[in-house]
């Protein structure tokens, strides 16, 4: 049997896959957060960053492909292992949750699946920019100028997008679940890969707790900061009118014609 088969056909092998892909996804989550926190700067900051990413299609698509592979492997191992775990106890106990276990550890599959649903929504929201699902309008019509070029206005998309309460709520719920998922998952990852002993385990748990809190605070600050009108209010107001003009019927809004 070759190595890949040996890994995939064993329970421990799948745990390695889950841990390594989880680590890769965690690295992405950290990088993505650092990128997004630029929304707290002037609009040009994050727009330049967004433009930079878009201007390197080879880099962008290899990162996207890599992430897709990681997500697929993570979910495939999670789902197959969970099925195996379910099958290992055909008859349940009378009551009470598994003694000595945390809720976080028991609901990893659930938190993971909600995160997956969120990721799909998030992609439709800001990457594909499906107009029907954001509660605002057609984000692809939002543009700004950088060094004389018209580029998509990522800043406006964020400050307008997070003025919608149910969008903010869904983002916060997903981030809460990511917090729970990582609080257990980051420590579990070290265990699965065999990096643990009695001195390191408390430190690993401490790292998992601190990292998951930092991720939660960082990500939650963005929709909350915008929703509570701390960030980008004036810009959002201005862009709201531009977006309305660009979207309205041409006879009602002559400005739209010029924009086209």
């Amino acid at each position, binding site marked *: 049997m070759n190595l890949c088969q040996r890994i995939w056909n064993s329970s*421990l092998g799948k*745990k390695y896959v889950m841990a390594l892909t989880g680590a890769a996804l965690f690295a992405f989550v950290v990088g993505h957060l650092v990128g997004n926190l630029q929304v707290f700067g002037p609009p040009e900051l994050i727009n330049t960053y967004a433009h930079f990413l878009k201007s390197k299609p080879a880099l962008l698509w290899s990162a996207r492909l890599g992430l897709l592979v990681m997500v697929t492997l993570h979910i495939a191992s999670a789902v197959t292992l969970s099925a*195996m*775990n379910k099958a*290992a*106890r*055909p008859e349940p*106990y009378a009551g009470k949750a*598994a003694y*000595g276990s945390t809720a976080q550890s028991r609901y990893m599959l659930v938190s993971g699946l909600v995160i997956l649903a969120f990721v799909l929504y998030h992609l439709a929201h800001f990457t594909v920019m499906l107009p029907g699902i954001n509660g605002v309008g057609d984000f692809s019509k939002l543009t700004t100028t950088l060094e004389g070029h018209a580029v998509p206005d990522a800043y406006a998309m964020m400050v307008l997008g997070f003025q919608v309460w149910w969008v903010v709520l869904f983002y916060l719920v997903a981030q809460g679940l990511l917090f729970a998922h990582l609080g257990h998952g980051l420590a579990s990852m070290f265990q699965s890969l065999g990096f643990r002993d009695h001195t390191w385990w408390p430190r690993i748990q401490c790292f998992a707790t601190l990292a998951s809190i930092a991720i939660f605070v960082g990500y939650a600050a963005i929709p909350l900061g915008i929703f509570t009108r701390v960030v980008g209010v004036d810009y959002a107001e201005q862009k709201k009118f531009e977006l309305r003009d660009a979207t309205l019927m041409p006879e009602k809004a002559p400005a739209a014609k010029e924009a086209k």
Partner: protein
Amino acid sequence: MKVFLKVWRQKNRNTPGTFKTYTSPELNENMSFLEMLDVVNEDLANNGEEPIAFDHDCREGICGTCSLVIDGKPHGPHRGVATCQTYMRSFKNGDEIVVEPFRAKAFPLIKDLVCDRKSFDRIQQVGGFITVRTGAAPDANSIPVPKENADLAMDAAQCIGCGACVAACKNASAMLFVAAKVSHLGLMPQGQPERYKRVKAMVTQMDEEGFGACTVTGSCEAVCPKEISLDFIARMNRDYAVALLKGDAKAATSGGAG
């Protein structure tokens, strides 16, 4: 004191089981949990009822035969204590105590509270040993062992193979048991020659028996009557990763001939 028991009764594997409630006769609070069941059984037998079947042997916490999930926790309310070492003074007069068998696909039920744990024996048989000619007893200190390794190996070797780890785990995973067995030999010089072959064989057998995988919930460690640490699972994961990467060794020479 008296207690009310809600006990799982099941005639055999092919007949569905149910909980039945019993009121114990007057008990001495210094009886062990198993002695309490003996007394209840005597009562049942005197009334012409089928006694409750349960597993036990040494009754001193060293053989790993006693089982039982008592109020949702294998081996009852205490930490690091087996069912046979649990005493009725840990319960209150009038308590309702729920008693269930260990439940796992790999531990098929035999009757009432007795389940078949031979899957553990089969895991042991594929690698939980060292292959040496024993001969006469060697000099005690002829093979030096680092103190830390000796201590850890002793911790792992405490495992009595009762299966409480499987019973407690939400995934019915046997990783704590297998990890203890893999580690206690893997930490000793005598266990080195077969170290990677052993971990691979034992993990493969574990998977074949239908146990679940570890999700690091910590239930196993929390209920283990010998308080075996989850650290050993990490050690097993490490050894198994090396074994996977190495693959099966091909015979390079006809070694034995020389």
